[in-house]
C-alpha cells in the first residue's frame, strides 16, 4: 500500500518542525523518495503537486534534477495548473547547460501561438528566463508576432522577451527594431515600460540603432512631460509621483540618446529643468526620479545653468536625513567633481560634515570627495579638517587619509607658505602609524616623494623623516613621548643640530640646550596621547601594546634597510655628506641627498656640485638649495640626486666640486669610495 505523500502545506509544516539540520534532511529525503516513486508510476493528476513540493525542496538547496523530465511532461499537459507548475519548474531547474531545455522549445512554440493569454504569458516568461541562443533563434518570429497583438498583457511580456532574445542573439535586433516606433504610441504603462527597455537595449548594442532612435527624442520628451504634468493620476502613482519607474526608465534612455549629441540634449533641456524643479522630494519615489534626472543632466550636453542646478540638487541630497539619499549623492558628486569642480566646491562644508558619518561606506566616499576638493585657497582649512578626521577615523581609512593629505598639500604647493606644515602632517601620519602600523609603508612612500621636492626644507624634512621612519622605529614611542616643558626659542642654527640629535639619541630625548622650536612643535602635537604610557585610543584594543606593535611591524616585502650616511669629502672645514634613501615600491630608484656643511671661519661661495655615473644608470640632479655654504656650521647646502638603476649594476659615483673658499677657487674631482652595497642591490 502506498503511503499517501504529503501535501505541500504539510511538507512545509514538517520541515519547519525539524529541530536540527539532520532531521530536516531526513524529512526531505523521505519525501524525495516518495516524489521519485510517484513520478515513475504515480497519478498524473497529482503530478503537479509533487513537482511543487520538489521545487520547494530545491529552494532550500537540495538536489532536484530528477524532476526535470517531469517539468517537460507537465508543460505539455493541457491543464493550466499543470502548465503553471511545469513552466515554473523549468525556470528553476533547467538551464542552458542541460540538453533537456531544448525539448521545451516545441512546447513553447505551441503555447505561444495558441491564443490563451495566460498560457502565452507563461511561455514568454519561461523563454525570457531560460531561453538559450538556439531557442531564441527558433522562436524569434513567434515573439515578434505577439508584439503587435491586441492584448497588452501579452505584449508587455513579449517586449521584454524580445530584450532577452537580443541579449542572446544580437543579430536578431533588426527584426525587433521596426515595431518599436509603433509601440511607443502605446498608452498602457506596462507595454511602454517594456518598450523603453527594449529601445535602451537596442541603442546600447548598436550605434546605428542609437542614431535611428534619436528621432524619437521629441516623442519621449512628450511622454515624460505628460507623466509629470498630469498631476495626480491614481493608476500608477506611487507617493504622489506618476509611475516613477517609467519616468526613471525614460530618463535613462534620454541620457543614452543625448550623450555627446547637441541637438538631442537641447530638446531635453526644458523638460529636465521642469522635472528637476517640480518633483516632490518628500518621499523616496520622488527622490529616485530626481536622482535619475541629475545623472542624465550631468551626462548629456546640458547648458551650464542646468548643470549647476543638478549639482545643487546633489548638495541638497547631502543634507537629507535619509542615509540612502546621502549615499547616492556622494557617489554622484564623486563622478562629477572633476568636470564641474566649481559647482561642487560650493558644497564643500556639507561634504566635510559627511566625514562624520557612522556608516563606513559613506565616510569613505566623503573622504575621497574631500580630497578631490582641496585646492590652493582652502588647503589650510581642509587639511585641518582632514587631520582631525585622521585622529578618529576607522583604521582602514587611515592610510588613504594620511597619504591623501600629503598629496593634496603637495599638489597645492602649500608647504611654501607653512614650513612647519610638513612636520605637522608627517607627525600626525607617524602618530597614525604608531596606532596602526600597516599603512606605514605607504606613508613612508609618500614621504619619500617629498624627498625629491625642490624646496630645500621640504627635502630635508622628508629625508629626515624617512630616516627616522627607517632607523628609529623602535624608538618611535620614546621619541613621541611628551617632553618636559622647555623654553621656546632657538635659531635657525639649531635646526641642523636638532636633526643630528634626533639621529643620535638613544632614549627619550632630553634637551640639554635651548630647544629648537621645530622639535617642540613636533612634540606639542601630542596633547592627550603620549605613545606607550597613556590609555589607548578607542579604536586600538591593545594598550601597552605600542611597543609590541612596533616590533610587530609587518614586513614590507621590499623594506629597505636603513643605509648609513657617508662622509665623502673634507677640506679645510668644508664637509660633504651623502645620505641615501631607497624608496620602497620603486626598487630601481636611489635618492642621494648631498649635504655640504662648512665649519670653517670663512664662507664658501659659488659652490657647484656635479655628479657622474656609469652609462647604465640614469642620473638626475635637482637644483641645489643654494650656492653659499655659510661659515661656522651655518645652514648647509643640500642637493638631491635621483639615480635610476634598473639593471641593479654596482653603483659608482664621481663628484666634481667647484667653489671659492678663503679667496681661492677650488676644484675637486673624486670618486666616492665605500658606497654601501644597499645603494644598488
Amino acid at each position, binding site marked *: 500500500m502506498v503511503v499517501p505523500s504529503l501535501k*505541500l*502545506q504539510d511538507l*512545509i509544516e514538517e520541515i*519547519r518542525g525539524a529541530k536540527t539540520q539532520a532531521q530536516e534532511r531526513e524529512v526531505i529525503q523521505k519525501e524525495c523518495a516518495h516524489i521519485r516513486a510517484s513520478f515513475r508510476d504515480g497519478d498524473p493528476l497529482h503530478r503537479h503537486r509533487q513537482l*511543487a513540493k520538489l*521545487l*520547494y525542496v*530545491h*529552494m*532550500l*538547496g537540495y*538536489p532536484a534534477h530528477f524532476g526535470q523530465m517531469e517539468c517537460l511532461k507537465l508543460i505539455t499537459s493541457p491543464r*493550466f*495548473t499543470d502548465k*503553471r*507548475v511545469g513552466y515554473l519548474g523549468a525556470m528553476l531547474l533547467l538551464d542552458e547547460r542541460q540538453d533537456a531545455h531544448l525539448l521545451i522549445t516545441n512546447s513553447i512554440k505551441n503555447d505561444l501561438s495558441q491564443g490563451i493569454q*495566460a498560457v502565452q*504569458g507563461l511561455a*514568454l*516568461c519561461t523563454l*525570457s*528566463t531560460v531561453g538559450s541562443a538556439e531557442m531564441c533563434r527558433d522562436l524569434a518570429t513567434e515573439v515578434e508576432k505577439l508584439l503587435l497583438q491586441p492584448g497588452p*498583457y501579452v505584449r*508587455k*511580456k513579449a517586449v*521584454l*522577451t524580445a*530584450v*532577452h532574445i537580443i541579449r542572446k542573439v544580437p543579430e536578431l535586433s533588426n527584426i525587433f527594431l521596426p515595431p518599436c516606433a509603433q509601440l511607443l504610441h502605446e498608452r498602457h*504603462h*506596462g507595454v511602454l*515600460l*517594456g518598450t523603453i*527597455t527594449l529601445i535602451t537595449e537596442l541603442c546600447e548594442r548598436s550605434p546605428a540603432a542609437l542614431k535611428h532612435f534619436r528621432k524619437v527624442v521629441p516623442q519621449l520628451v512628450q511622454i515624460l512631460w505628460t507623466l509629470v504634468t498630469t498631476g495626480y493620476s491614481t*493608476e*500608477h502613482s*506611487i507617493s504622489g509621483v506618476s*509611475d*516613477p*519607474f517609467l519616468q*526613471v*526608465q525614460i530618463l*535613462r534612455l534620454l541620457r543614452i540618446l543625448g550623450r555627446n549629441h547637441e541637438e538631442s540634449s537641447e530638446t531635453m533641456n526644458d523638460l529636465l529643468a521642469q522635472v528637476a524643479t517640480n518633483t516632490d522630494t518628500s518621499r*523616496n*519615489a520622488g*527622490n*529616485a526620479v530626481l*536622482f*535619475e534626472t541629475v*545623472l542624465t543632466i550631468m551626462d548629456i550636453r546640458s547648458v551650464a545653468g542646468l548643470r549647476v542646478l543638478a549639482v545643487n540638487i546633489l548638495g541638497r541630497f547631502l543634507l537629507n536625513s535619509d*542615509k*540612502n*539619499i*546621502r*549615499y*547616492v549623492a556622494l557617489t554622484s558628486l564623486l563622478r562629477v567633481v572633476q568636470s564641474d569642480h566649481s559647482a561642487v566646491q560650493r558644497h564643500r562644508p556639507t561634504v566635510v560634515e559627511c566625514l562624520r558619518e*557612522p*556608516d*563606513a*561606506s559613506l565616510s569613505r566616499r566623503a573622504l575621497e570627495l574631500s580630497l578631490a576638493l582641496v585646492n590652493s585657497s582652502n588647503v589650510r582649512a581642509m587639511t585641518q579638517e582632514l587631520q582631525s578626521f585622521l585622529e578618529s577615523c576607522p583604521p582602514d581609512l587611515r592610510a588613504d587619509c594620511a597619504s591623501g593629505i600629503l598629496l593634496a598639500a603637495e599638489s597645492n604647493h602649500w608647504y611654501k607658505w607653512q614650513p612647519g606644515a610638513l612636520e605637522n602632517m608627517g607627525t600626525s601620519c607617524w602618530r597614525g602609524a604608531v596606532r596602526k602600523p600597516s599603512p606605514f609603508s605607504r606613508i613612508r612612500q609618500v614621504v619619500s616623494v617629498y624627498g625629491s621636492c625642490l624646496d630645500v626644507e621640504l627635502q630635508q624634512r622628508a629625508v629626515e623623516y624617512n630616516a627616522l621612519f627607517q632607523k628609529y622605529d623602535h624608538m618611535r614611542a620614546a621619541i613621541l613621548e611628551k617632553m618636559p616643558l622647555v623654553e621656546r626659542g632657538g635659531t635657525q642654527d639649531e635646526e641642523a643640530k636638532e636633526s643630528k640629535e634626533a639621529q643620535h639619541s638613544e632614549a627619550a630625548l632630553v634637551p640639554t640646550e635651548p630647544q629648537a622650536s621645530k622639535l617642540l612643535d613636533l612634540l606639542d602635537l601630542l596633547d592627550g596621547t603620549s605613545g606607550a604610557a597613556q590609555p589607548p585610543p578607542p579604536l586600538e584594543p591593545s594598550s601597552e601594546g605600542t611597543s609590541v606593535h612596533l616590533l610587530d611591524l609587518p614586513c614590507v616585502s621590499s623594506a629597505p634597510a636603513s643605509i648609513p650616511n657617508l662622509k665623502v669629502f673634507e677640506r679645510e672645514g668644508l664637509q660633504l655628506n651623502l645620505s641615501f634613501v631607497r624608496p620602497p615600491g620603486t626598487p630601481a630608484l636611489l635618492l642621494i641627498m648631498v649635504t655640504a656643511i662648512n665649519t670653517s671661519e670663512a664662507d664658501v661661495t659659488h659652490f657647484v656640485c656635479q655628479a657622474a655615473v656609469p652609462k647604465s644608470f640614469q642620473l638626475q640632479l635637482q637644483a641645489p638649495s643654494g650656492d653659499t655654504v655659510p661659515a661656522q656650521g651655518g645652514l648647509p647646502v643640500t642637493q638631491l640626486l635621483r639615480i635610476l638603476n634598473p639593471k641593479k649594476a654596482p653603483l659608482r659615483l664621481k663628484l666634481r666640486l667647484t667653489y671659492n673658499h678663503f679667496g681661492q677657487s677650488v676644484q675637486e674631482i673624486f670618486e666616492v669610495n665605500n658606497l654601501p652595497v644597499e645603494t644598488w642591490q
Partner: protein
Amino acid sequence: MIKFFLMVNKQGQTRLSKYYEHVEINKRTLLETEVIKSCLSRSNEQCSFIEFKDFKLIYRQYAALFIVVGVNDTENEMAIYEFIHNFVEVLDEYFSRVSELDIMFNLDKVHIILDEMVLNGCIVETNRARILAPLLILDKMSE
C-alpha cells in the same frame, strides 16, 4: 538589470529566490548565506545599499524578513528600493496583511506575482490591479 531577488529571514532561511542570471545550484546557497550575513551586520544607521562582489545589493527589512535585490551598476538604487516596497504592497493586498507564513505556504502564488512584475531582470508592471488580475482570475477558475 536585476540579477536576483531574494527573501531571506533573519535565521538565514530562504523564503523565495529568483535568479535572472544563471547561478550554479551549490553556489546559490552560499550566495544567499553571504548576502544575509552582510545584511544582518548592518546597523540602522547604515544605508540600504551594499557593494557586494561585482554587483550592488539593495535590501529592505520587513519584520523578520529581508528582501534583497542584487543588481548590476546600471540600475538606479533608489528606484529598486521603491520597487521592493511596491512588491510588498502587492503581496499585502493579495494576502490581506501578508506575513512570512503566507509567503511560505503560498510560494507558487508569490512566484506568479513576482513573474508579473519582473521579467528577465527588468521591471515590467508596477500597477497593483494589473499585477493581481491574472492571479485573481486563476483563483476563481480553480474554485
